[in-house]
């Protein structure tokens, strides 16, 4: 970690003089992830215990899953980890522009994963009749994967905040209002794009990948599509930095701590994917 080069955001007392040489934020994150291991451990145990104990109303689990979709979203989440690693790497080299792109990529991939999960949940509820209280499998499935989804959502929110922070002007000129607007636009884009994406998936499901599907999508999801498009343009406009920014190499440890969290959430998903989905195919 570079120390004195960019006096900007280095907290002299708290980081570069640590006893072990490991930055506090990183150590904090490692300890938190140890705690989170126990958290997911308890959830996964609950799922396995009920899976191994016969419970009433057990649904046809293999008929429920669409392994293609979940494999795809798993792949997307894995790739988001790659982008996250690149964000850390570019930040360490002081390339703020590249860092932004990588953060944005991670955000988009995280959102795609979330959209897949939203789709999966709504599909299971509406088409397959699996609800939170229809069976014990439903309870443990939604609780476990839903908690993981919450972790991803929190990670995305954190990424968005970090992304916005990269525009904080170095001279201290006001930016809070602009950043809040930025955040609101992000929220609109997130909700609208997930809605439009789901509309698209449903349309393709009903009509195949045809012109008819496209017109159905346009018909049903026009407001969402427009909101997404306008939001994206607004994001680009808001993201144009007019001045030198404070964000730099010194913040690499912030990005790295966030990355640790993101990779952890990714690893947990691999375990969940194996335990909840793949084991069923044994």
């Amino acid at each position: 970690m570079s120390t004195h080069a960019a006096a900007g955001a280095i907290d002299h007392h708290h980081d570069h003089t640590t006893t072990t040489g490991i930055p506090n934020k990183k150590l904090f994150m490692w300890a938190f992830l140890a705690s989170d291991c126990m958290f997911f451990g308890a959830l996964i145990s609950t799922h396995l215990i009920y899976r191994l104990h016969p419970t009433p109303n057990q649904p046809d689990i293999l008929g429920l899953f669409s392994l293609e979709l979940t494999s795809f979203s798993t792949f997307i989440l894995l790739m988001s980890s790659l982008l996250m690693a690149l964000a850390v790497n570019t930040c360490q080299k002081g390339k703020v522009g590249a860092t932004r792109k990588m953060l944005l990529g991670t955000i988009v991939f995280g959102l795609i994963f979330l959209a897949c999960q939203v789709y999966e949940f709504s599909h299971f509820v509406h088409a397959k009749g699996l609800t939170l209280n229809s069976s014990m499998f439903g309870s443990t499935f939604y609780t476990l994967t839903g908690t993981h989804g919450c972790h991803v959502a929190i990670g995305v929110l954190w990424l968005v905040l970090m992304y916005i922070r990269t525009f904080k002007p170095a001279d201290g000129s006001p930016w809070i209002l602009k950043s809040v607007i930025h955040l609101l636009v992000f929220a609109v884009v997130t909700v609208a794009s997930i809605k439009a994406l789901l509309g698209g998936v449903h349309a393709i499901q009903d009509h195949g990948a045809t012109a008819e599907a496209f017109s159905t999508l346009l018909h049903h999801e026009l407001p969402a599509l427009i909101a997404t498009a306008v939001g994206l343009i607004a994001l680009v406009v808001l993201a144009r930095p007019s001045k030198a920014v404070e964000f730099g190499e010194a913040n690499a440890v912030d990005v790295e701590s966030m990355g640790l969290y993101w990779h952890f959430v990714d690893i947990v998903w691999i375990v969940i994917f194996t335990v909840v989905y793949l084991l069923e195919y044994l």
Partner: protein
Amino acid sequence: MSAQSQTQSAGHAGHAAAPVEKRSWLLTRPTAKTGIISWLTTVDHKKIGLLYGMSALFFFLVGGFEALLIRLQLAVPNNTLISHQLYNELFTMHATTMIFLAVMPLSAAFFNYMMPLQIGARDVAFPRLNGFAFWVFLVGAIVLNIGWFVKSGAPDAGWFGYAPLTSTAYSNQFAKDMSTDLWVMGLQILGVSSVVGSLNFIVTIINMRAPGMTMMRLPVFTWMTLITAFLIILSFPAITIALVELMMDRSFGTSFFDVSNGGLPILWQHLFWIFGHPEVYILILPAMGIVSEILPTFARKPLFGYPIIVFSGATIGFLGFGVWSHHMFTTGMGTVATAAFSLLTMAIAVPTGVKMFNWIGTLWGGTLRMTTPMMFALGFLWMFMMGGFSGVMHSAAPADAQQQDSYFVVAHFHYVLIGGSVFALLAGIQYWFPLIFGRKVSEAWGKTSFWVIFAGFNITFFPMHFLGLNGMPRRTAVYDGNMGWNEANMIATIGALILGVGVAIYFCVMVYTYFKGEKTTHDEWGARTLEWTVPSTPPPEHNFDVIPTVHARDAFWYEKTHVEQTAKDKAASALAEQSHGGIHMPSQSWFPLVAAIGLLIGAIFFVNHIMIGAIAGGVVMFLGVYLWAAEGPGGYHIHLDDKNSKKH
């Protein structure tokens, strides 16, 4: 405070040349050093420690009052003093209050106040997060206790919250609906506070030690803080999951613990005790740490077998995760599991016994000074040992089958939790009072309070051993007159009243001492650890004028005997600090409080199923966290050669 010393620069802990920024009014950092705002916005570990201490002592009195009501109800057979429903609420809230709102935060008070001083740090690693942990603790405490003031009533399903007692099916009948929701929500919030605080302590102890303070030179209290913090971060997630599943059962119609739909109430017990047993050590390890500081000081000898004390502390923490099922011997886990957990539980007595012998070894041949803190510490040794003996009795599964849910168990855990934890915490208050407030408790009054508490405690709980062996069950509001329990119950109630008087004396003496007590010098007891090297009592905001350099395990003893070496180190450290622009201190902040208030609003509305309010609370919390992130760590410098900043 001069402008130079208060250069407020976001993100800059920077050098003197850093430009002064224009800041949005929203992000202006509060600077009040006295008055209510200084307490609401504080990030100073000492002030936060005091806040924890005051709240914990308040709830200690509340929990004690609840206990007195329980004891009054049980004084005579077939008593009708309080209703059975109120009795259920009282024993639930007495346990919850004492564990989560009194003993844990009182330990946290010492963690906060003493641990950074003991390792030679100026503050904890994340000062604002530390403030947040306190405010969240207060929110949890409020949520848990709301029930006393509203129609739904206080939580009433026991501190263990066993399903299905806590399920909606039963709580309609036995527990009023919202009470269990309050319990679930309150505990979740307290869990957040504990985990956040513990993560902070772990980072602080590992990363912010003074030069030369190796792990094997850490004071034992700091070691126990570290082990306790690890226990908290690894055990609380289990109860969090259990509470989440219970909340899903109660609010969203799942059936995790509902037998009719394939749920397993035993799963609750497993998840609960995987947390609940380490929790026992979360309560006792800090007490052991305090006693390990007090005994050597008043025996005028170094602690006997320091490494063994540390490693047995770690062993207790480690084994503590492998014994949870001894709370469940009577649930029918099968012989193999029962035998294994029985054996592991007995194994825990080994490191505990090792510690006991080390403490005795410390006293052996020492020049003992019988001060008030020493009396409390010796009381701890004796009574914790008695509690430990009955603990070994429980660990034998066949014996446990007889003792389960009897007053024998009540006697056991009060001997370890009052005779152990509380006595050590009371000893700690007496021991560090001169450091924290610059005044010393009168020995005559301190000893009076000790003897009354000691007598009251033993008169209350010793007879319970016999009550238990004679078959009196726990958690019953009434008993029949011809069971042979009358005399012992009456004695216990009288003892509880004496204990109450003792605690009252203790509190009165403390309040008197705070205002009128004898003023003291900064090394009142001739101690051996770094917290006593602060330049004044109470310690200044920046803790040490110069960060100490540590050469030996008993750092302060070394300083006293190597004055020349110490002076040389201090000059070198002072020079290094000056090159960094002076002593760096973190700025105060409003946002930990704002975030906690958001959590409070959200929690209260969520319990009442008013989702719009819950979301509003969430928004407030999010705004608090957002502005917290936006204002940056901040900080300012104190220059000791600057007359203006010397003031504080």
